[in-house]
């Protein structure tokens, strides 16, 4: 029993120490934002690498998620004679919740892990030390462009996810299940509010973009310079991001819904 308490205390201490270290690292990144924006070419390169290369996985996943939502939604709504509201259900679910959340998790799996392992390997092979020795700050040259690119990419990818998801829902709802196309779009147009629904999705995706990118670059930058260290950093980048995104999503939703 005593040992369990000790373990819990140690784990709690470790958690808060890590949280403190991540916060310090985040503040250091914030200081570097203006300088990094002046060299936007580096951010642009990473945006292409991290964002554009995630498009395929985001697009395919979004269409399947939209199709499943339409199938499930049709099944439920038909019991109440409200199949005309299928478009609203699909759009609301995607724009407010699934779009930002799933995009962040998929981004962490596709790009976050590659960021963590790339930066971790750069440390293990002395590339970061080499930069420091050439009087080049690795935070500014390596970490910041990748971090900013992630922060910009996730909201854009989330918007694409929601749009393609709605298209997937349309294919199934209208094309397969025979829902009226006019009702599908018109009800969606009336019910989905830009200021509340769309904006909440945008804010969430910005928060998730910061979370996913921060965790990936932090884990990579602080990875022990060994094969095991890099592998652990890569795993942690996806696992911690997934849990953090779900927890933050709950907090933001609770704040919005009240």
């Amino acid at each position, binding site marked *: 029993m005593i040992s369990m308490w000790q373990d819990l205390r140690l784990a709690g201490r470790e958690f808060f120490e890590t949280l403190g270290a991540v916060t310090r690292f985040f503040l250091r990144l914030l200081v570097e934002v203006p300088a990094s924006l002046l060299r936007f070419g580096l951010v642009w390169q990473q945006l292409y690498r991290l964002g554009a290369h995630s498009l395929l996985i985001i697009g395919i996943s979004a269409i399947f998620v939209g199709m499943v939502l339409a199938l499930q939604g049709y099944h439920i709504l038909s019991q109440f004679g409200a199949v005309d509201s299928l478009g609203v259900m699909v759009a609301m679910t995607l724009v407010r919740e699934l779009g930002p959340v799933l995009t962040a998790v998929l981004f962490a799996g596709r790009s976050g892990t590659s960021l963590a392992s790339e930066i971790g390997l*750069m440390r293990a*092979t*002395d*590339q970061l*030390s*080499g*930069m*420091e*020795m*050439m*009087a*080049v*700050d690795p935070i500014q*040259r390596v970490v910041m462009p990748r971090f900013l690119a992630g922060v910009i990419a996730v909201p854009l990818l989330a918007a694409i996810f929601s749009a393609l998801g709605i298209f997937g829902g349309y294919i199934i709802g209208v094309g397969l299940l025979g829902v009226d196309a006019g009702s599908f779009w018109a009800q969606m147009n009336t019910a989905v509010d830009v200021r509340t629904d769309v904006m909440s999705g945008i804010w969430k995706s910005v928060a998730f973009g910061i979370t996913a990118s921060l965790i990936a670059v932090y884990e990579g930058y602080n990875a022990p310079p060994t094969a095991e260290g890099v592998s652990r950093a890569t795993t942690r980048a996806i696992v911690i991001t997934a849990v953090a995104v779900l927890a933050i999503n709950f907090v933001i939703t609770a704040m919005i819904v009240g």
Partner: protein
Amino acid sequence: MTQGYVTPGNVTDPHLRLEGVRFSRNGRPIFRDVSLTIPRGKVTAIMGPSGTGKTTLLRLITGQLQAEQGLVEVDGQQVDRLPRKALYELRKRIGFLFQAGALLTDLDVYENVAFPLREHTRLPEALIHHLVMTRLHSVGLRGAARLMPSELSGGMARRVGLARAIVMDPELVLYDEPFAGLDPISMGVIVRLIRQINEALGLTSVIVSHDIEEVSQVADWAWIIADGRIVAGGTPEALRSDDSPWVKQFMHRESDGPVPFHFPARDYADDLMEVGQ
């Protein structure tokens, strides 16, 4: 112990000076009391068995690590007292060759050598091209300019690292184990390049190595580090005839001596009997 050789007292205007440096890692002392000077314009070697902290010493010199006690001075500036900006300014005047070259793997050879120029200067592209090609030519790799680091052999990667280390015209070049893991031909090339570059550019060169033969060919002075302190210093020829047990063991490649063959352990018989008990 260092009597008769170069001591901190008899080099005027040294490029680099360490005095009473103490440093430990995870509670284990690496340096107890290290004092040495590096004369300007010469090739100086810091030698010693593996694990004596030779690379750590280079990291102390470049301010990547900070000494717990003592003085680390480069060109009259106390490295551990410098704010980050001033430290980076100092590093622009230092070239550093890492053991494996530490090339940026997403850039080709040309861009690796051009990297410091692009980061620190606003030179026109034509001039950057000229400087990069000149440096690559001096290490014999002009023809490999468009190869990626993954396509290079160990020796080639080190030569590219060397070209990158001197592209900013540094005053001091630090070499971390430049001969380790190279075939005899590549080793000979590196030895020749270190000497040529030192003379052509009028540099101060510091080589950290345990390769006695190669160091003897290229170094004007050598310090031997063991047991957390400097145990001897002087010309490689003088060190060969030194009769101190540390120097003798190192220079004559004796497997046992003041540096024991066995890592400290408890009694051999006790270890063997442990399973039975």
